[in-house]
């Protein structure tokens, strides 16, 4: 649950009010002209963002050498078994076993090889193993919901996990998050650092959720939605979802241009 210090007035805000705010922001964006490919930092329907977004424009910087490189992760950091979230305890976790796989590329389509991907998520009942999660749904003793993987030489990653459930939070009255998996990614440049959430196609909670809709461009929002992929489904074992991730445009250095 989002335990922001919400006053009783805020807690009383209805889903209808939030939905109307979301629709109004979408209308204004559609009529506005200028494309917004990034998530909006100032999106007051997510109440906790009100005091936590910068009010000044992000300031342009040309990357220095440091920012054109990124931390290196490897076999010393991540064991292959960490990509399987279903075998971290003595028994099988409850829920729908799923494969989540895809490819990490930069803005120019180049794969991001041998880089770290971290995920965390609620269990099938919508409950996190986190002391701040007060949602009265069962904890699964066989599921922690944390995984790590390294991309392969072509930028591919693959996790085996359990489909997370939606969960309630305290942004407004009867607020529910669409089911999602949190993803953390590194690129080849420091500037490509990304933390985002992967959603599942067709979730009925999409239009009600201020976090999902803080990415105001509908086409860009689509990039966070994983598709069912029967090619990833394993017979008698797990259904498959494909989700490709594009990091920001890697800035070419003069050295690379010469090659």
């Amino acid at each position, binding site marked *: *649950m*989002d*335990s922001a210090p919400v006053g009783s007035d805020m807690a009383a805000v209805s889903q209808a009010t939030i939905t109307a705010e979301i629709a109004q922001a979408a209308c204004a964006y559609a009529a506005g002209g200028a494309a917004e*490919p*990034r*998530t*909006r*930092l100032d999106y007051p329907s*997510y109440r*906790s*963002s*009100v*005091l*936590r*977004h*910068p009010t*000044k424009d992000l*300031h*342009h*910087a*040309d*990357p220095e*050498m*440091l*920012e054109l490189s*990124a*931390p*290196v*992760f*490897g076999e*010393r950091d991540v064991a292959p078994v960490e990509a399987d979230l279903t075998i971290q305890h003595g028994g099988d976790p409850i829920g729908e076993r799923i494969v989540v796989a895809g490819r990490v590329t930069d*803005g*120019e*389509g180049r794969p991001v090889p041998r880089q*770290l991907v*971290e995920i*965390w998520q609620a269990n099938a009942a919508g409950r*996190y193993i*986190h002391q*701040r999660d007060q949602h009265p749904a069962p904890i699964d003793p066989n599921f922690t919901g*944390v995984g790590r993987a390294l991309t392969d030489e072509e930028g591919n990653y693959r996790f085996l996990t359990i489909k997370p459930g939606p969960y309630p939070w305290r942004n407004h009255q009867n607020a529910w998050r669409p089911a999602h998996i*949190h993803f*953390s990614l590194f690129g080849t440049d*420091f*500037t490509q*650092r*990304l*933390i985002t*959430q992967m959603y599942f196609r067709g979730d009925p909670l999409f239009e009600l959720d201020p*976090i999902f809709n*803080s990415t105001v461009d509908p*086409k*860009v*929002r689509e990039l*966070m939605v994983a598709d069912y992929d029967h090619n990833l489904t394993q017979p008698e074992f797990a259904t498959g979802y494909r989700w490709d*991730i594009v*990091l*920001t*445009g*890697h800035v070419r250095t003069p050295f690379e241009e010469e090659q």
Partner: protein
Amino acid sequence: MIRTPTPGQTVGPFFGYALPFEADSQLVPVGHPDAIRLHGTVFDGHGDPVSDALLEVWQLDPDGAAVRQQGSLHRDGYTFTGWGRASTDATGHYAFTTLWPGAEPGKAAFFAITVFARGLLDRLLTRAYIPGDEAALAADPLLSSLPADRRSGLVATPDLEGFRFDVHLQGDRETVFLRYPGDG
């Protein structure tokens, strides 16, 4: 062909059991003879501390070279990886133990910093410059593109163990957050 990047989303409230790891903020052990501390507090627009933020630091080694070492997630106490991660505590305070960052010849030394928090919808990037080399700081393209009052917020303050660098997400003292070419 340029592809639209996957957009960011908030790190949310529940990263605390997933992203931190043992010695995550200790790029070198606390007892290392050359250890310095980079620390500070994250504030919101009311000036209240943010107790559920996560910061990451990325830096050159003391000789000013880029670091290409794996092992951040399982530190061996000897390998300097140049990268670390620190959660803020109940008072909004974070701290890294690290080495003095070098710089390219003639350039200003800085820590590259990423900020995540519950309530922050996408990550923010900034720099914490090392004070002292006035010529290099004056010649720095980013610092010289800023008015004096905003510039000072990007320069860390020396203290007994190293440097203090506070992050103001909003308000009069709002930290300068950065956008790079190719960010979309």
